[in-house]
């Protein structure tokens, strides 16, 4: 291989301007890359790497790095024995020493490319270090080499070799370092492998210049970073932890501590390297101590040096910030790396107090001074608006605090170790001050944000304490603390702070972080409830809202309290909580005045407001409407307030109906409208009995918004119709006629609107009209849905009059059903609507509305079977069946379920002929979705009343033969439906004796064919679909064990000629129990027959 050619490739890849022409395309680069990779992995890779590394870096600046990279490739691909690894070790270390020497002794500008090459060679050394010390490694076969079994300390090796470079006594000339065959060089390297460097040698070495120091700091960082990364990939490297612990750790700690003790602020880049190296070692030890007994290494001296440096250096806190960042990482990920004494020190530094007595050799005065320094540091950050650094410090402090939450909890509330409760209370006082950090949360400070977690842990810790361990006054202490926390957070999460944030930044992240903060506080308040209860929390919020001056209310305070109150009330059934209702009731006027004031402030003049206020006002509407919805249970007991609230909600809705061409305002109105209508619907559903007197008001609103020219969304129209339906549902006291009159009026009005729109067809507005008419149909459907009770009939007024209502709606004297049927018929007869599947769908939904409720429940849309069938048959031929057939079939399935007792086999045959057979070849068979629909229809019949299908004339002539073919479908959904069919057919608990006999005969006749199709299907399916067949095979073997065994013996050779696998399959299958075991047997057979590796 010609080195010039390789240099050319390297230059192309590294984008050297002299070699890469303007015409070089990405494709060319990919080709060059592939070619170069081939060279790197080839048997010439090793020689090429050495040649590239030996080139003059000034002349060929990129070649060294590619040479080192090629050694990496060789290490990863071409090492098949320990001797090959040692060979690479010798080459790599000699290049590393030579290039490092050049780097530290050169007087000219140090190039970044040669530094990158050195780092890559260090990384190779780190890989070799890990591999050589691997548990699984064998001793070298080449006894003459006297190669050791381990490589203890790469740092010592590097220092020894660098010290020998240029040393005539070493017997290796400078030139020889490029000659890997030089026996003296090899001897020197061999000697260096486990040569120990003394403390003095080490210190002298790094003191020579900052470049020597930099080299060693980088090398140790790279080694532990690589082992940390490597750990996730490999388990058998426990040997390495012992070697690192016994050798590299000692050397590194010496270097790191020396550097910290002799810290010089001028050496910025060296200092950064020092901190990086420390971080890498912290991460390494944090990982290693969990995986090996040798991973436990003491970092106390480093930590003490860092603490000292952090609090004593005078470089305008630049170094302090870096050290805080290191500690933040420790506290966040593995705080127990610090021992008790150091944690004690931190507690006093951060807070100025400690919950415990000082350790014997710790000077409290010194720590108190450090706390003074911390206060200065915080002040400096606040004064200079260094909010990012302040955030880092808050992370650091709060993560630190969370280590001790349980201890704080025990000391404050229990008799365990409660020897110094005044200290603990002092401690809490400081924490409260920290939480109440006097800046704007998120925008300026994160202490309050981070402290949420601490308080939540404390509250939960307190709640989980065993009663017998608690102090006498623990409840009082807890209440006092958590009430103070509540009082701190109320202004902190106020939207006033969000306003400041919105005015200050466009950053979504910060705004999101504030919203997240509010959510976190709301969860905290939920935890507090377990401690404070309703009397000290829920009531406080209710009274807080009520007592806010009604003449000059603080809207932000009301919003905050409403936001939190909702969280507490949302899981309570207020209609069953008289105590809470009494509290609300005793404050009801001012309470609701303020809630509605919040709502009105939200929507009033919102479109004129600036962007910030628009967002805040939307929040006001959101909080108030959600709380109003949650208060539905209370409104059941206070009709006056309900009435006032409904009025205000309607007024709000009216505001949203304003006409505008501004899309932004439209979107805003749409959002507000959605909040309001959802709340109206919730109130109507929960307070329907109380709202019967307001029916006319509701209907007036509905009539105005149903108009085509109204700006209300279809969603609001449909919701309003449903809301009215809820009220109508309980309008039973005066008998069915009154209810029916309202229903008739609503239906008639809706139908008139449909007819009017159909008659005034406007070509340019056709899509609008279609959507509008569809919405009106949906309104009829929604009205129908609102009459379906969620639970069993609960209305005490309805039950005594049930018979009366049943008779009334069965007779339907007002012809409401006929009117509905008539308009649907008109719509589907018009090709503009009838050809659209959404109109078929909504028609079927309306016709099937009452099919899901018990037969004794009266419903104005309970159509008879002939009515529905006649309608379906009529429109089947005029609809676009390829898209509409599923909706017809959906209704048909409902009919089978609803009328199963009355349905005859002949009627079932008729359905099957008209809806399936008539279109099977032309439409259904061409679309796997429709095929699946057909199979599912039969499956539904097998679930509901199997005899209808089994005794159908189409069972043997069409269903069985056709569904047998479908077992080899490629579409998973068809396959799943078909295997479900065969499973249900073979094993069905709903069979009558007659059904069972018929089916048994059919299976005995068809069994072999079924088995063949199933096994053929399994063999040819993809692995992920094999499960689809498990149940059918289990059903066969379960219900027909002897026959299935014989069928399998006959058919398996036809499917796959592998007698051993087939025999094993039959044997294993007959003893497999459970779906999972059978699934594994089938999978094993499939793997063996497809020549794939077994499980």
């Amino acid at each position, binding site marked *: 291989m010609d080195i010039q050619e390789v240099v050319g490739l390297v230059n192309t890849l590294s984008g050297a301007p002299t070699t890469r022409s303007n015409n070089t395309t990405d494709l060319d680069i990919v080709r060059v890359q592939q070619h170069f990779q081939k060279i790197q992995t080839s048997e010439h890779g090793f020689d090429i790497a050495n040649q590239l590394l030996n080139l003059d870096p000034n002349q060929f600046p990129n070649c060294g790095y590619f040479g080192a990279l090629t050694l990496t490739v060789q290490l990863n691909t071409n090492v098949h024995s320990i001797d090959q690894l040692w060979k690479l070790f010798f080459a790599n270390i000699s290049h590393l020493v030579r290039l490092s020497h050049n780097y530290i002794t050169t007087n000219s500008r140090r190039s970044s490319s040669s530094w990158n090459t050195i780092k890559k060679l260090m990384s190779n050394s780190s890989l070799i270090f890990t591999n050589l010390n691997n548990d699984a490694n064998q001793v070298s076969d080449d006894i003459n080499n006297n190669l050791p079994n381990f490589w203890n300390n790469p740092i010592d090796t590097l220092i020894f070799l660098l010290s020998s470079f240029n040393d005539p006594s070493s017997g290796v000339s400078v030139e020889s370092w490029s000659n890997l065959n030089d026996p003296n060089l090899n001897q020197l390297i061999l000697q260096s492998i486990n040569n120990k460097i003394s403390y003095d040698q080490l210190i002298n070495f790094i003191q020579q210049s900052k470049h020597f120091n930099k080299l060693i700091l980088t090398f140790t960082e790279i080694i532990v970073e690589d082992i940390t990364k490597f750990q996730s990939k490999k388990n058998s490297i426990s040997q390495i932890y012992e070697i690192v612990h016994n050798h590299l750790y000692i050397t590194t700690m010496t270097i790191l501590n020396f550097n910290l003790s002799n810290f010089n602020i001028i050496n910025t880049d060296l200092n950064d390297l020092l901190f990086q190296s420390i971080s890498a070692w912290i991460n390494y030890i944090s990982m290693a101590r969990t995986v090996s007994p040798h991973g436990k290494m003491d970092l106390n001296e480093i930590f003490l040096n860092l603490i000292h440096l952090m609090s004593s250096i005078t470089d305008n806190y630049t170094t302090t910030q870096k050290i805080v960042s290191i500690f933040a990482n420790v506290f*966040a990920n593995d705080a127990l790396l610090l021992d008790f004494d150091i944690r004690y020190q931190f507690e006093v530094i951060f807070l100025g107090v400690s919950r415990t007595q000082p350790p014997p050799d710790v000077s409290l005065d010194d720590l108190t001074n450090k706390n003074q320094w911390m206060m200065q540091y915080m002040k400096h950050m606040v004064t200079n608006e260094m909010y990012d650094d302040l955030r880092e410090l808050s992370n650091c402090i709060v993560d630190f605090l969370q280590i001790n939450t349980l201890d704080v909890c025990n000391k404050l509330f229990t008799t365990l170790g409660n020897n110094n409760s005044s200290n603990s209370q002092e401690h809490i006082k400081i924490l409260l001050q920290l939480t109440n950090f006097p800046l704007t949360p998120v925008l300026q400070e994160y202490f309050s944000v981070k402290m949420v*977690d601490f308080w*939540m842990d404390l509250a*939960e810790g307190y*709640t*989980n304490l065993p009663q017998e361990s608690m102090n006498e006054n623990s409840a009082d202490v807890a209440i006092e603390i958590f009430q103070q926390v509540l009082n701190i957070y109320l202004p902190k999460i106020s939207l006033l702070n969000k306003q400041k944030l919105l005015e200050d930044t466009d950053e979504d*992240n910060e705004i*999101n*972080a504030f*919203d*997240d903060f509010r*959510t*976190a506080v709301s*969860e905290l308040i*939920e935890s507090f*409830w*377990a401690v404070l209860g309703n009397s000290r929390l829920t009531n406080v919020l209710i009274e807080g809202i009520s007592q806010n001056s009604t003449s000059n209310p603080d809207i932000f305070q009301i919003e905050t309290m409403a936001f939190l109150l909702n969280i507490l009330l949302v*899981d309570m059934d207020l209609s069953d909580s008289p105590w809470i209702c009494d509290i609300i009731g005793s404050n009801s006027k001012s309470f609701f005045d303020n809630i509605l004031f919040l709502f009105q402030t939200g929507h009033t003049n919102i479109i004129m407001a600036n962007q910030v206020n628009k967002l805040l006002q939307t929040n006001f509407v*959101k909080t108030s409407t959600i709380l109003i919805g949650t208060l539905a249970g209370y409104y059941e007991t206070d009709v006056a307030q309900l009435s006032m609230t409904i009025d205000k909600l309607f007024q709000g809705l009216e505001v949203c109906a304003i006409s505008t061409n501004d899309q932004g305002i439209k979107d805003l109105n749409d*959002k507000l409208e*959605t*909040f309001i209508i*959802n709340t109206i619907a919730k109130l109507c559903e929960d307070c329907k009995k109380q709202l019967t007197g307001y029916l006319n008001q509701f209907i007036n609103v509905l009539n105005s918004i149903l108009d085509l020219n109204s700006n209300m*969304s*279809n*969603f609001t129209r449909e919701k309003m119709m449903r809301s009215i339906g809820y009220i109508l549902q309980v309008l039973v006291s005066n008998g069915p006629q009154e209810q029916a009159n309202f229903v008739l009026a609503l239906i008639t009005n809706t139908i008139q609107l449909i007819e009017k729109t159909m008659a005034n067809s406007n070509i340019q507005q056709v899509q609008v009209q279609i959507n509008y008419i569809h919405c009106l149909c949906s309104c009829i459907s929604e009205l129908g849905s609102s009459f379906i009770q969620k639970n069993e009939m609960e209305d005490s007024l309805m039950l005594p009059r049930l018979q009366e209502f049943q008779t009334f709606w069965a007779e339907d004297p007002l012809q409401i059903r006929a009117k509905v049927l008539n308009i649907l018929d008109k719509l589907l007869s018009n090709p503009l609507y009838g050809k659209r*599947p*959404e109109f078929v*769908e909504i028609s079927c939904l309306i016709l099937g509305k009452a099919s899901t409720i018990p037969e004794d429940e009266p419903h104005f849309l309970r159509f008879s079977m002939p009515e529905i069938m006649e309608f379906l048959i009529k429109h089947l031929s005029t609809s676009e069946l390829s*898209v509409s057939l*599923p909706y017809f079939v*959906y209704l048909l399935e409902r009919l089978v379920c609803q009328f199963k007792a009355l349905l005859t086999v002949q009627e079932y045959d008729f359905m099957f002929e008209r809806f399936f057979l008539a279109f099977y070849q032309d439409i259904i068979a061409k679309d796997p*979705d429709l095929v699946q629909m057909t199979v599912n229809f039969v499956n539904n019949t097998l679930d509901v009343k199997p005899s209808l299908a089994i005794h159908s004339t189409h069972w043997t002539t069409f269903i069985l033969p056709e569904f047998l073919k479908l077992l080899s479908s490629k*579409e*998973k*959904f068809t396959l799943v439906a078909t295997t479900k069919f065969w499973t249900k057919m073979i094993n069905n608990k709903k069979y009558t004796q007659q059904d069972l006999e018929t089916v048994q005969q059919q299976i005995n006749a068809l069994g072999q064919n079924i088995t063949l199709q199933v096994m053929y299907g399994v063999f040819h399916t993809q692995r992920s679909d094999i*499960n689809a067949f498990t149940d059918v095979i289990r059903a066969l073997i379960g219900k027909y064990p002897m026959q299935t065994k014989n069928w399998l013996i006959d058919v398996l050779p036809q499917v796959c000629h592998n007698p051993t696998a087939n025999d094993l399959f039959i044997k294993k299958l007959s003893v497999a129990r459970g779906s*999972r075991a059978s*699934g594994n047997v089938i999978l094993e057979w499939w793997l063996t027959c497809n020549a794939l590796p077994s499980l």
Partner: protein
Amino acid sequence: MSSLCLQRLQEERKKWRKDHPFGFFAKPTKKVDGSMNLQLWEAGIPGKESTIWHGALYPITIEYPDEYPSKPPKVKFPAGFYHPNIYPSGTVCLSILNEDQDWRPAITLKQIVLGVQDLLDTPNPNSPAQEPAWRAFSKNKSEYEKRVLLQAKQYAK
């Protein structure tokens, strides 16, 4: 609840509080006595921006079995939730939540909720769990989108 299950759920809660994607919430429910039920969580999944699911926070429940983390939790939307891969009961059909498919004990709550959020806008047509949404998604996209937008209003945030 096994100690492994309890330990892992406590760990999940801690992790979630420390790091969770914005706009989501997830918290254990409360038992009648006010204590925490770590095996049943309620969570909210925001619809992704620039999708038809945007603007709403969809509620789910996450029920952890005693065998968790060997077995996956059951994730449920409200019954009748409109989506091709959500069963009529509300149960989510997602491979990472299926013990026989891609469930691994290392999967975290964060990965689950993000997986569910992803599923909202990228349904898997090969794994239909309900008829109406799956049919509309395959055959009538505009109708599908219309229904999803309506549902988004139902859960508007």
